[in-house]
Every structure is written in C-alpha cells, then in structure tokens.
C-alpha cells in the first residue's frame, strides 16, 4: 500500500516508517500539517497515519481541510489524548480510526489494514465462510463442516468480527471496541479467556484450528496453511 505518515517527532516517524516499510508498504513522510496536506492532496494514498499535534497546522484542521477537498482516503489518527470525547472529536473530524499513544506497532498495522479494507468492501455479506466454518448472519447460525455449533451471543459476536476480518490481525482492543458496546478498561486478560472458550467450541479436535494467536499482536482467523 502507498501510505503517508504525518508525524513531527523524528524518532517516532523514523521508527514508524521503517516498520511500515518492513510490512512492505511504500511510505511518504511529512513533518507538519501543511506539508502533509500538500502531499495528501497531490498523491493518491491508500491510507494516512496522522498525528494530532503538529506544527503549522494541527492534525484535525489538516484532516478537515483534506475532507473538504472531497478526499475519502482512510485516515488513522494518532494522539496522546485518550479520553472518549477526544476520540469522538477525532472521528467526527473525519478520521476512520483513532489510536492512543503509546501504541504497539502491531496494533497500528492491524488497524491500518482494517480501515483500508473498510474502504474496499462496504457491502455486508450475509453469509461468511472460512474453510468449512460458516456463519449465517440472517439466521444467527454457525456451522462447522455442516454441524451446528451453539454459541452464546457474546461468542457469536466475537466470531463474527473475526470472520469479517478473516486473514487479518484483530487486536484485543479492536475486539473490545467492536464487540462490547462500552468504552472501558478491561482490567485483566478476560478477552483471552473469551477467545479460548470460543476456540474450544469452534476449533475443537479433530477440526483443524482456524483461530490463531499472534504473540504480542492479537488474533487472526484464516484458512489453515498448507504446511499446517
């Protein structure tokens, strides 16, 4: 993907650009809001990573100006301001997602992927399928190899989210924000417990596991690899 990083801190920007290039993206970098806006309006980017506090023109103003030109490019806002209403303000200004500093790079990559795909596949499918796992969104029924699996509502929502993002990394915070309708601090690793319960139902032997744990990143539901 062709990405634009707008970040004024040289260390963070260097690290971020390097990590994104390692993830095989093409990255441009701007150090202030005005340059960022100039680049963003001149090039066709797949996504923009935008810091909120920038010299010359702050992130939200830059975003508003960009949206005013009619651009629909997905934007991920980075900010040290983590409160719920700051997040809402960021999303209202036209951001597609909001990540609070400090963040794990794996979290940022997963979210970038999620927002770029959001742009590509707006159509909601009624039937999700990964390998022999099937989820019918109309009937709320989950089947594996034709066998119906009974899931609790919460487990169903987690599985649905994973299947909608099949093949991509889903972080714990992404799950928290999307499956549970509350903004809260999860205290302990309850998410992991939820996932292991889900696994016990969906991935139980002799089925081939479909839900993978990615250390330090999150989870991924995907077709089993040929080698696996």
């Amino acid at each position, binding site marked *: 993907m062709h990405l634009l990083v707008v970040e004024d801190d040289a260390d963070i920007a260097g690290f971020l650009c390097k990590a994104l290039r390692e993830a095989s993206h093409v990255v441009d970098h701007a150090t202030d809001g005005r340059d960022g806006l100039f680049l963003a309006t001149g090039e066709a980017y797949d996504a923009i990573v935008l810091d909120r506090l920038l010299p010359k023109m702050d992130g939200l103003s830059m975003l508003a100006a960009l949206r005013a030109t009619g651009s629909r490019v997905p934007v991920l806002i980075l900010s040290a301001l983590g*409160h719920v209403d700051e997040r809402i303000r960021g999303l209202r200004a036209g951001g597609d997602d909001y990540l609070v500093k400090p963040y794990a790079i794996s979290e940022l990559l997963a979210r970038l992927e999620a927002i770029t795909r959001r742009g590509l596949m707006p159509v909601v499918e009624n039937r999700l399928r990964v390998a022999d796992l099937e989820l019918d969104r109309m009937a709320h029924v989950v089947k594996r190899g034709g066998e119906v699996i009974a899931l*609790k509502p919460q487990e169903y929502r987690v599985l649905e989210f994973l299947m909608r993002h099949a093949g991509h990394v889903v972080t714990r915070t992404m799950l928290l924000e999307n499956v549970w309708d*509350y903004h809260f601090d999860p*205290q*302990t690793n309850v998410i992991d417990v*939820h996932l292991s*319960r889900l696994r016990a139902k969906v991935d139980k032997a002799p089925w081939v596991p479909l839900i993978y744990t990615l250390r*330090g990143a999150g989870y991924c539901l995907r077709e089993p690899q040929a080698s696996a």
Partner: protein
Amino acid sequence: MKLTTSARLALVNSGLVAASFAGLLLLVTWLADRFMVNHVQESVQAELNIMLAELRGDGQRGAVALIEQRMQAITPNHDRVYRFESSSGQLLAGNLDRWPQTTAGPGGPFKIPSRKYPGETEVISQWTRLSDGGRLLVGFDDIELAQVRSDIRDAALWGLGATLLLSLGVGFSLIRAALKPVEAIRAAALRFMEGERDTRIPVQPSGDEFDRLSETLNSMLDRIDSLIASVKGATDTVAHDLRSPLTRLRVRLEAALRDPPTSQELQPWIEKNLAEVDQVLATFQALLRISSVESSLLRQEFAPCDVGQLVRDAVDYIEPLAEEKGQRLEVTSADVPMVLGHKHLLFQLLINLLDNAVKYAPSESMVCIRFSMTSVGWQLEVADSGAGIPTEHRSRVFERLYRLDASRQTPGLGLGLSLVKAIADMHRASIVILDNKPGTRVVVTIPKRFNEFDRGELSSAWIQ
C-alpha cells in the same frame, strides 16, 4: 482615602444620628414657634378685648387712661405698641405716632417691625374699628420667641456636639469590637496560607453570626487540609509505585550496557522490559482516568441508563473468568427504573467489582450480584466468599495504589477500587464494604434524591 469598615460604619452611624437629631430640632423649633406666636396672638386679642370692654364701660376717657397705664407698665425689654385714634385719624392715646403701613384688615393679626430691636423682633399686632369710626391697635413684640429660639439653638448645638462625639467615639469602638473576629479570621487564614495547616479560627461559644462563620470556615480548612494530605499521600505513593518499575528497568538497561544479553537471551529480555514499561503506562492511564472521573466534568454526558442491562452485560463479560475457576455467578436483578448516569463508567464500575470478586473468591465458590430498588435508591451488591478485607483496611482500599499485603501476589495495579470510588462519587452514590462472613460484600447505593431526571428536570445539585 480608604477607611476601615469600622471607621466607615461609625461615620455613617453618627451621620445618621446627627441628621435625625437635626430633624428633631427643626420639629421642636417649629412647634415652639407656632406655640409662641399663638400665645402672643392670643395675648394681643385679649388686650384688645379688655380695651373694648373699657371703652364700652368708661367711654373714651377710660380707654385713654387704661392705655396710659399700660404704656407705663411696659418693661424695658419689651416692646408693646398701642394706638387709639379718632375717626379723623387723630391720635387719642398710644405710643405709635402713625398708623402702620398694612393691608391687614381688622381682626387679623399682622406684623410690624420692632422699633426697639429692629430686625430682630417683630411686633405682632391686631386692630379693630370702633363703632364711632375710630380705630384701636394693640401689638406685643415676640421677644420671648426670639429668646426661646436662641435657647433651643444653644442647647441644640451643645447636644448635637455631644451626640456626635459620643456616637463617633462609642460607635467606633463598639463596631471595632464587633468586627474583631474578622481580624481573627484574617490572621488565621494568613497563618494557614503560610503553611501552618493546623491553624483554626478561635470560636467563642456565644454562637453569634461570626462564630457560625468561623465554624464553617474551620470545616472548610479541615477539608482543604485533608485534601492536601490525600493529594500529597497519593503523589507520594504514585511516585513510589512508578519509581520502582522504572528503577528496575534502568538497572537492567545499565546491566545490559555492560554485559549485553546474548542473541538467545535478547528476545525474552526485551519482552520482559516491554511488559514493565506497559505496566507503568497502564498505571499512568488508570491514574489519569481516575482524575478525569474525579473532576466530574463527565457528568455532562449523563443519560438515562438501564443498569439491569449493564449488570447482565458485565456478568456476561466476566463469566468466562469465573467459569475458569469453577465459580458460579448468581445474578438477582429486579426490574427497576432507569438511572441517570454515565453508561460506560457504570459498566466499568461493575467490571471492576466483579473482576475483584472473581479474583479473590476461592475456586468452586459462588459470587452473588444483586441489583434492586430500595426506599433510598438503587442498590447494587457484589458479594464473594473470599478472604475478605480486614475492617481496618476497608476505608483505605479506595486509596490509589493501595493494596493489601495478601493481594500483592495477584496481578493488578491497586487502582480498580479507586476508580470504582471515583465513579460512585460522580454518581453521588455511597459505597460500603461489609463482611460477608466469609468474604467481602460491596454495596453501592445510588440515591434517588440526586437522581431525578424522570421529573423532567435535573436537581440543581447536579449543576455545579
């Protein structure tokens, strides 16, 4: 020039006294004047009547003799005028050579200038026409009136002077004595600001306004004092709790500089340190969250919440944790009215309480969650059968970063209950920890008194 309050009050007071005194004097003078003038007029009328009676009885001669006699009796201080004239205007008797210039008709009193004290006194006169066409005029001066006036003026001046002096002097000292507590309050406030935090305003048992004010101010000082102490305590703990992991990190980094980890050791070494940093960041995040809740600004986001639904969601969320430990969650949730509150924060409160209960309750035990409506308000109860919290620690578990020694081995920051307390305070809810025999029972009560959205108005207590 700036005057002190006591001087200003004393001045205003004596000004008022002087003004009312002067008003009283004016009234007295006016009344005395009227009385004296009436008195003189009546005397003149009487004299005229006597003359007429004499004229009727003894004729012109008798009247002339009487006037002569009267004129001799005039004392040197007094001025009295008589004029008895014939119809042709010839003076028959009297000491007034010419008829005075007056438009006054017979019977009505009029004034003519005094000849003895010109300008100072006047002669109040009256005349009458006789049956033969002659005229008779009698006039008495008002020297008594002038006398009384000057007496009143002298007395008034002395009296006013004395009153002013008294009201200024006594008033000033009285007011100063009355305002003395203000000075005491000022002095105490100054001492408090200079750091003597145990300073309090002295309170007399008289119970007057100043004592009540002093008592209120003293309790305000108590509150400030305890807030300073708690902030200081919290800052100390925070500093301590954040310093320890940072110190560990520093030591490890320094050691790694001297003796770098081998390539096999590197991965776990970095992961361990990252976890440490994440812990510090999480502590920061939690502390910031608590203070943002404590600031009560989020009350603006209050909306009607279905707490019964929140309880069910929270239980669903925590349930896998309990299942892992073989615990059972028993939920009793009555159908109750909506609560005006912050949905996300109330959910957080529930999560924290349930998480604690599941964490500290033994395996295969039961955790009870009860949500109901009582006469005072909504009541939420979370009870476990764990180790419980010793009585002496119950008030302290809400402090930031406070952890029981027994719980130091379990993961956690010691901020969960602080956040619970902050959220409860924000909803004006009380929170108490009771003994569940065995275990802990936490009861949160959201009072109806402050939660009156259903009346279509927010109680003014909400608007700060």
